């Protein structure tokens, strides 16, 4: 894929967002005035971008009404992010060594491959009912873990297996032991793949957490927020929450790409 870069690219990006917002606004207004409607969709009940914006601003921070504290979107974002990061860290700590072992050693590869292949085909959401019952707490972190760990493992394996054999030979002739080779050749060479795995994994984890929070109950979290707002018929807050989910996911992806570009600058 080729993207326009520089000022022109940015301009097109911004323009597309504006057009999307306008189309959204116009469609809803048309539907509300019975001018145009899409069959089987209650288009008129979708909040307009303007309503969504007000809802977003209005529910950004904790509000207090008499005895009740309604957590702000900021608290929900924070709670969800912390869960994703915790799950992500655990997945990283477990996924990378597993990936290296399985990728480097034929024996470990044969041993673990079937298990990995079977479990990775169970989507994170499929684990939700089980984790409700087996986890006293932290069930949602587990769902994130499941989402993140497999992209990390698979990309690590791929990175390790695609290590240039000449580099391994070079290290051998320079006197490196097996463990040195893993440490100084295999891991660095697999690092870009590992980072890609982390990036893909966190994307999956972010989607999984939102789903998990709808079912595994905790007082805060973006998934919980949009579900609650749906329950109350407060659709503009609900859509605001959905947009926040999307934007944060996007920012997360870009941040890791940036980190990758910044710290792995040796890749051609």
């Amino acid at each position: 894929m080729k993207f326009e870069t520089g000022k022109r690219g940015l301009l097109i990006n911004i323009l597309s967002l504006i057009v999307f917002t306008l189309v959204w606004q116009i469609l809803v207004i048309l539907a509300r005035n019975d001018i145009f409607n899409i069959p089987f969709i209650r288009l008129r009940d979708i909040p307009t971008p303007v309503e969504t914006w007000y809802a977003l601003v209005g529910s950004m921070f904790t509000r207090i009404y008499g005895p009740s504290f309604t957590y702000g979107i900021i608290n929900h974002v924070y709670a969800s992010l912390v869960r994703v990061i915790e799950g992500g860290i655990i997945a990283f700590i477990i996924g990378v060594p597993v990936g290296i072992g399985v990728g480097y050693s034929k024996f470990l590869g044969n041993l673990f491959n079937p298990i990995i292949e079977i479990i990775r085909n169970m989507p994170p959401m499929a684990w939700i009912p089980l984790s409700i019952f087996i986890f006293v707490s932290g069930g949602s972190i587990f769902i994130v873990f499941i989402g993140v760990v497999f992209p990390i493992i698979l990309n690590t394996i791929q990175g390790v297996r695609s290590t240039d054999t000449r580099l391994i030979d070079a290290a051998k002739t320079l006197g490196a032991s097996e463990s040195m080779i893993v440490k100084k050749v295999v891991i660095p060479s697999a690092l870009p793949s590992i980072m890609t795995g982390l990036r893909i994994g966190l994307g999956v984890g972010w989607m999984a957490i939102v789903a998990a929070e709808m079912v595994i109950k905790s007082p805060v979290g973006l998934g919980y927020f949009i579900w609650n707002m749906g329950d109350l018929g407060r659709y503009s807050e609900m859509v605001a929450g959905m947009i926040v989910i999307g934007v944060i996911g996007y920012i997360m992806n870009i941040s890791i790409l940036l980190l990758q570009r910044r710290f792995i600058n040796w890749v051609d």
Partner: protein
Amino acid sequence: MKNLMKILFLIIVAIFVAGCLESKKTPQVSEPINLVKMSGQEMIQRLGTGEIAGFIMWEPYPAIAVTKGYGKNLIFSGKIWTDHPCCVVAYDDDWYKKTNNSDEILKRMALVQLKSVEYINNAKQSDSPDHEQLINYTMQFGGMTDQVAANLSLADVEFVYNTNVTATTTFIQRIQDFGIFDMTKWNMSGYKNSSDYANSLVTNNYVEWAVNNKDENSSKIALKEPVNIRYAYLVNDIHELPFYVGWQKGYYRDLGINIVIAEGAPFQNGAFEMQQGFKGNTVDVGSLGIPPVIIHRINSNDFSNNDTKVGVIAGMNNEGSVIVVANNVTSMKDLQGKTVGFPGQGTIQHVLFLMEADKEGLKVSY
């Protein structure tokens, strides 16, 4: 492009830091009670394992948890607010307008309600000849296997058929105080105040007709042409037992009303029944808690066509919810900083819990 990314990166860091500060700050203002939404089954299970310190729920869940020894009743909802309304019978305004004899149908539905409630209140006495039948109905409708729990839960619920405008006004006022209404929608509704809204919501005429005609012979006042009514109710909710009794004992049929269970029914909660059933025009008449009716007739309504407009014609029950707590909890204050299960935002249990916390000066977060 690079700069844009830097800005985005800064934004995420800023959100993160702000979140840290915010989430650190909030609980320190006072230790709130954490309300967490869950199903009734989950409440019982989690109270048993000690993961939650208590829950507020409709019968039969409190009775089941207590019979199992997982906890005890702390406060009956009648103590929070004596004779508070709970479940009601409501009709869809779209259906009402396009059906020419809808008033006649609703009168008869109110009459069934009256008959069923009287039957239940008689049969509740353990020496009544109908008692065993009532216990069977309770267990069937509540999805229970335990006679003791069925008896207990029946005892906690006060079945009524009349409506109460004053109590509805109070409910609306509290819901407004607690910040649950979407204010844009509220302003669109055009109601001057809570009693204005309550008067528009609740109609006493049908119950009055029912009271006047309760001794008439069914065949005499039955509808000439039997009608199909798509009826919705909530899953396993003992509060709506009068509907089940009226259905099972043939009271509806005797008056020319043929009950068809609406698409999607029984619903998990009142919010679903309002948003999917009434708003989607798949329900003609249904029973549900009065708070979802109050909330969604405002929040979920499209005021250009009033698709979520419903009217309340009769009561189902008063009271009947319980705050159940772990055995070591003795007061609401003990729940501070702990997690308490509730069936969801905008349910009657939610509002009642907030009212009780308000009375005691406690904070509740969710």
